[in-house]
């Protein structure tokens, strides 16, 4: 306690008034900086030493199956959960030692709605403005701004209980932006929404990136959503297994994905291994493997496999393939196995709520 306050005083002395935020928010400093972050729940290590940086103005996605440690990480960055070890700085402030400073500078949109159903949209926003100390003279105009941004101006006086799921999520995004945070955290912003609403939400998020040039940190387990990010980190079983732009990650795979279904998948895998030196795996009920030029390989495959082939598909690399390359399974396979893990540890599920 004493240490912290003398520290803050010291920093304030160093920087003349009117200079940049002494706590590291000067232009160029990372919006998020995470070092060796670990979180254990009893014997289970949900996050096992995660390190990454997010630059100001970047949209950074945390991609991984349910139970990979995404929500645990985001909770630590939002100061809702203390790390077991490691450090994290958000908007220039330490998430453990300077919790209140971090909270003032971040906006949060959770997986589950945190709106008051019995208040109107505007009242929910006003509540937030008052708690976050938005200057009185700016509260009204700022509420108008964010409502306009998410297209809810006409519904500002309606009770939130009359809103659809998509409208509630939009209102939550508006509320998360109300106090002009430096970093906006979106935990699975489109989970539980229908595809059309999902694409609307993404429309707002992309518009927001244009207009506010804010740093966005989001988690998702939808591959197509990760494509919207400037950079993504793929997280699996509590570790970051890859981190780059979506394009670079796909380019890194470099190979086409071939999926075949045969009468005897086991025999096909053996032949692929022996004759072609290809390691194939069974994924989503098909035999899947990677080759440099899929369209050239398929004719050889028909000629030399010796196992009847029922169907074949060749695809350019997607983020799914990136995930597969780094983890050895598709995200859907990973979710199936992680849901077994979750069932074995029901307290963990409660933790994630």
């Amino acid at each position, binding site marked *: 306690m004493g240490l*912290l*306050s003398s520290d803050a005083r010291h920093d304030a002395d160093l920087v003349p008034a*009117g200079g940049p*935020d002494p706590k590291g928010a000067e232009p160029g400093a990372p919006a998020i900086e995470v070092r060796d972050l670990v979180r254990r729940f009893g014997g289970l290590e949900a996050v096992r030493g995660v390190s990454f940086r997010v630059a100001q103005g970047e949209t950074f996605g945390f991609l991984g199956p349910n139970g990979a440690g995404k929500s645990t990480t985001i909770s630590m960055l939002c*100061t809702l959960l203390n790390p077991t070890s490691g450090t994290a700085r958000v908007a220039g402030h330490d998430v453990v030692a300077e919790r209140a400073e971090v909270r003032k500078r971040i906006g949060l949109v959770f997986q589950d709605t945190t709106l008051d159903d*019995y208040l109107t949209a505007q009242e929910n926003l006003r509540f937030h403005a008052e708690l976050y100390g938005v200057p009185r003279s700016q509260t009204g105009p700022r509420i108008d701004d964010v409502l306009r941004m998410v297209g809810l101006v006409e519904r500002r006086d309606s009770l939130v209980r009359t809103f659809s799921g998509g409208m509630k999520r939009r209102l939550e995004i508006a509320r998360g932006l109300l106090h002009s945070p430096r970093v906006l955290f979106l935990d699975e912003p489109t989970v539980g929404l229908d595809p059309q609403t999902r694409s609307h939400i993404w429309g707002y998020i992309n518009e927001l990136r244009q207009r506010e040039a804010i740093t966005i940190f989001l988690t998702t387990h939808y591959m197509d959503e990760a494509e919207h990010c400037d950079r993504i980190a793929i997280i699996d079983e509590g570790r970051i297994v890859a981190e780059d732009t979506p394009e670079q990650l796909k380019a890194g795979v470099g190979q086409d994905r071939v999926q075949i279904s045969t009468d005897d998948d086991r025999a096909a895998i053996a032949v692929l291994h022996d004759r072609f030196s290809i390691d194939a795996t069974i994924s989503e009920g098909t035999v899947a493997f990677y080759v440099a030029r899929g369209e050239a390989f398929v004719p050889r495959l028909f000629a030399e496999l010796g196992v009847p082939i029922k169907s074949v598909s060749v695809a350019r690399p997607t983020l799914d393939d990136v995930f597969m390359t780094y983890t050895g399974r598709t995200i859907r396979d990973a979710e199936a196995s992680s849901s077994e893990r979750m069932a074995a540890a029901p307290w963990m599920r409660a933790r994630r709520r």
Partner: protein
Amino acid sequence: MDAGEATLSEAVREDVTRGDPSNATLRAAAHPARHRAAPAAVRVAGGRWQDDLRAVTMVWKRELIRFSRNRLRIITSLVQPVLFLFVLGTGLSSLMGRGLGSGATDFRTFMFPGVVAMTVLFTAIFSSVSIVWDREFGFLREMLVAPVRRGALVVGKCAGGATVATIQALIMLALAGLVHVPYSPALIFTLVGEMVLAAVMITALGTALASRMAQVESFQVVMQFVVLPLFFLSGALFPLHSLPTWLAVLTKFDPLAYLVDPMRRAVFAHVRTTAEVRTLFAGGVTWNGWTVPVGVELGLAAVLAVVLLAVAIYEFARTD
């Protein structure tokens, strides 16, 4: 809310805030290409007592808005005290009239302050337990992650609950004339003051209990093990005087008794009755034969209210 918040001196904080370039400028510098008609970004200061006061006021206002939207709740929570006063009260009145020779004074006049206290008790508990509903529906999280002291949230919540309980009790107070209680300004003023004190004390108690309560179902437990005993032992329905020892001892531990008694003494100071009836109905709480003065009773209640509020803040600070 946390150590950093509490220890940063205001001067330093202001330096930090002033030194903080506006978000829009900062972002424009970092991303000139993206800066296109950004809406005016606001600068959040926070951490000063004015900010806590704003939080308290807003949380309080929210309770009032929710209360005013729920007309059904206002009406249903008046049904019970009305039944007690006019059905149970009238029934007991006719019994008293025959048996005790105190027919000159309506037993409902005796019950009236008790029923007003009961209205405060039930409304205040119900309001404060709404924290559990806030948790259930997620809104509590919105409050907990805000950069304000938890204490401010608790104070706002208690102020809201106490205001709502006082308003409900005021509606009951309006019925005074029907049970021969005069609308004397001095009496009304005294009763309202005592109602507010009771409302604050009970709301703080409810908040302390609700802060760590995870499920809505636990409310039933609070009802059965806390609220009903508080109510029955308070002397709201029967005089605490000449009870069997075991019961008399229990009533002395009921904090609500020290609020029902001053309210009743105030009422009986304003109605015309015999000394005998006054002793029987408004004899006061005694400690080992000493009749506790009203000032001491109210002082006790005020101290307890502050202690309970402190417990509520402590408990709430530990919630997550």
